[in-house]
C-alpha cells in the first residue's frame, strides 16, 4: 500500500473514532434521568443559598445554552457548533465562570507533568529494556522482575507511596499542591523554582511506572528478535555483534512506537488520579471536583479534551510508524 493511501485510511478511521467519541460525549450525559439541569438546579435549591428567582434565571440560561427545549439532533449540532467555535459552555458549580477559563487554568499543569514524563519515560524505558535483553543473566532477571513490578503498579499506588515516604515521613518534598501557599502563578524565576519543588513527586510517579512498562515491552521484543532467522544468518555470515545489535534494535524498536501510542491513553488516565493524590491543580483535580458537584459541562469538556488529545497523539504516532516502517504499509493493507 502506498504511503498516501495508508495515511488516508488512518485518517478516515481516526475521524470515525473522533465522531464516535464526540457523539458519546454528547449523548451519555443526556441520558441522565430527568436532565442534568434539573438535577443541579434542585441541588442548588436544597443548599438554600439561591433564591427561587435566581434559580429560575440559572435554569433558563442553562436550558437556552444546551438548547434542551429543542429536539435531540438539533441539540447535537448546537453542541458540535459550540465545541468547534471553542466555547465549552458555563460551569454549573462555579456559575457563571466559563468552562474555558477553568480548563485554561488547569491544563498547563497537566501538560507540564505528562509530556516530559511520556518522552523521557519512553526513551529511558526502551534503553533499559534493550540492555536487559542483550546482557541476559541476573541483570536481565532483576531488571525484568522490577520493571514488571513497576509497570504493573497502578500510577496512583506509587503516587501514594512516594507521597507518604518522601514527603510525609522523610520530608524531602512538600506534601501536595503545586506551589507554596501565598504565591500566585506567574512567569517569574522565583515562582518557577518554587513550583519545581512541588513538580518532582507527580513527575516521578508517572515516569517510573512508564519506564517499567516500556522496558518490559522492549525486552520481550528484543529477545524475540534475537531468535530471528536473520540473526542466525548474520551470525553464520560472520557479521560482527555490534552490527547485528543495530539490526535487532531497529526491528525491536518498531513495535515500541505503537506501544507508545497505546500507552499514552493509559498514562493520561492514570495521571488524572495521580494529580488527585498530590492535589496538583491539573485537569484530574478539576475533574474530581466537577464529579463531586455534578458539574456536567466541566466533566464533558474534560472528557472531550482528553479524548481529542489522545486520538491526536495516537494518530501522529501511527503516521510516523507508517513512514518509518515500510512493512507496515504492506502488511496492514488487509487489516484495518
Amino acid at each position: 500500500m502506498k504511503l498516501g493511501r495508508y495515511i488516508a485510511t488512518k485518517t478516515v478511521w481516526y475521524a470515525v473514532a473522533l465522531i464516535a467519541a464526540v457523539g458519546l460525549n454528547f449523548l451519555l450525559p443526556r441520558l441522565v434521568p430527568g436532565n442534568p439541569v434539573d438535577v443541579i438546579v434542585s441541588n442548588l435549591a436544597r443548599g438554600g443559598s439561591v433564591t427561587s428567582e435566581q434559580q429560575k434565571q440559572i435554569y433558563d440560561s442553562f436550558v437556552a445554552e444546551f438548547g434542551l427545549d429543542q429536539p435531540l439532533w438539533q441539540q447535537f449540532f448546537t453542541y458540535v457548533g459550540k465545541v468547534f467555535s471553542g466555547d465549552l459552555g458555563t460551569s454549573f458549580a462555579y456559575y457563571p465562570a466559563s468552562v474555558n477559563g477553568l480548563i485554561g487554568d488547569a491544563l498547563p499543569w497537566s501538560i507540564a507533568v505528562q509530556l516530559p514524563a511520556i518522552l523521557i519515560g519512553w526513551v529511558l524505558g526502551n534503553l533499559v529494556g534493550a540492555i536487559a535483553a542483550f546482557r541476559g543473566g541476573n541483570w536481565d532477571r532483576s531488571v525484568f522482575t522490577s520493571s514488571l513490578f513497576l509497570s504493573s503498579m497502578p500510577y496512583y499506588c506509587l503516587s501514594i507511596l512516594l507521597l507518604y515516604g518522601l514527603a510525609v515521613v522523610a520530608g524531602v518534598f512538600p506534601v501536595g499542591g503545586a506551589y507554596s501557599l501565598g504565591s500566585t502563578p506567574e512567569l517569574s524565576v522565583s515562582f518557577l523554582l518554587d513550583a519545581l519543588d512541588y513538580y518532582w513527586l507527580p513527575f516521578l510517579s508517572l515516569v517510573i511506572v512508564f519506564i517499567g512498562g516500556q522496558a518490559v515491552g522492549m525486552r520481550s521484543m528484543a529477545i524475540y528478535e534475537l531468535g530471528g532467522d536473520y540473526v542466525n544468518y548474520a551470525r553464520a555470515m560472520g557479521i560482527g555483534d555490534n552490527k547485528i545489535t543495530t539490526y535487532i534494535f531497529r526491528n525491536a524498536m518498531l513495535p515500541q512506537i505503537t506501544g507508545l501510542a497505546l500507552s499514552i491513553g493509559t498514562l493520561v488516565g492514570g495521571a488524572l488520579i495521580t494529580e488527585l493524590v498530590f492535589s496538583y491543580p491539573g485537569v484530574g483535580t478539576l475533574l474530581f471536583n466537577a464529579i463531586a458537584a455534578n458539574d456536567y459541562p466541566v466533566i464533558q469538556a474534560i472528557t472531550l479534551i482528553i479524548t481529542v488529545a489522545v486520538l491526536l497523539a495516537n494518530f501522529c504516532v501511527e503516521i510516523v510508524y507508517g513512514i518509518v516502517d515500510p512493512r507496515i504499509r504492506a502488511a496492514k493493507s488487509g487489516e484495518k
Partner: protein
Amino acid sequence: MTQELAAVAEPKQASLLTRLNPLRGMNLSSRFWIALVIVAIVMLLGLAGFVYPTGSGEKVGSLYDAPGNGLLLGTDNFGHDVVAVLMAGTRTSLTIGLVAGIVATLIGVAIGLIAGFVGGWVEELLMGFTNVVLAIPSIIVLILISISLPQSTIWSLAIVIGITSWPWTARAVRAQASSVATREHIDVARLSGARLPEILVKDVLPYILSYTVMAFVLQVSGAILAEAALSMLGLGPSGTDSLGTQLHWALAFQAVASGAWWAFLPPTIVLTLVSFGFLLLQASLDEVFNPRLRRGKKKQMKKAAARRAAEARALAEAAASAVDGSSRTRAGESA
C-alpha cells in the same frame, strides 16, 4: 545383573513421575509459583471477611484511631475497623474483577473469533469497530457512562467495565483465529457438514484457549484497577466498600498528609499485589506457551548438550576399549 536392572529402572521411574505431575512437564518457572501464591493470598484475604468477627460497617472507634487496642490496623475516617473494611473491599474488588473479566473476555472472544475466522467485510467491519473503541481511552468512556447511570452498584459497575475493556482481547483473538482458519482440520469439519458456530467452538476455540486464558487474567486485574480508578474519582459503587472507595475516603479525609498510614497503605498494597500477581501470572503463562521467551531454558539446553556430549564420549571410549579388548582376546585365541 540386579545392579544393571536398577540402572535401567531408574530413568523409567523418573519419567513416570514427570507423567504423574502434569505441571512438571509444563516446565513452570518459579515466577509462576510466586504469582500463584500472591493471587491466592489476595483471594484468601477477600474470603476471610466471612469469618472476621467485626463487620465493615460497624463503628468501633473514632477518626483514624492508631493500630493497637485489639484493632490490628486501627480505624478509618468513619471509625470502622480497617481490617474488616479491607477484607470487604478486597472481596468487592475481586467480584467486580471476575465479572468484568468474564464479560470482557466473552465479548472479545466472540468478536475476535468471528472476525478472524470469517474474514472479508465482516472482519473489516468488526475490526474497524474494535479499533475505534480501542482508540478512545476507556477511562473516559467509563467516566461518561458512570455519571449517566442513576446509581452504581457493584454489578452495574462490573458490566460497564466489561463492555469497555473487550477490544484488547478481540484483537489478540482475531490474529490467532485467522491463523487457525487456514488449517486443514477446519476443511474437514466443513466437509463433514459442521455449522459455523460448531466449528468456531469445537475446532477453533481449543487452539486459542491458552491466549484466551491469558487475556482473561489480564482483564481481571485491569478491571480491578479500573474500578479503583473510578472509585477514587468518586464514581464508585454507592454504599459498598471496595479497595477504590477505601482509598477515595482516605484521600478525601487527608489520611496521607496526617500520617494515618494504616488507612491508606493496606488498600494500596493489596491493589499493587493484585495487579503485580495477575501480571506475573500472565507473564509466566506466556513463557509456558511461548518457548521463545524462555530464557532459563538456554542454560538447561546447554547442560543437556554437555551431558549428551559426555555420554557420547563415554560410549565411544567404551566401544573403543571393547574393540581393543576383543581384538586382544582374539589375538590371544589365535596365539
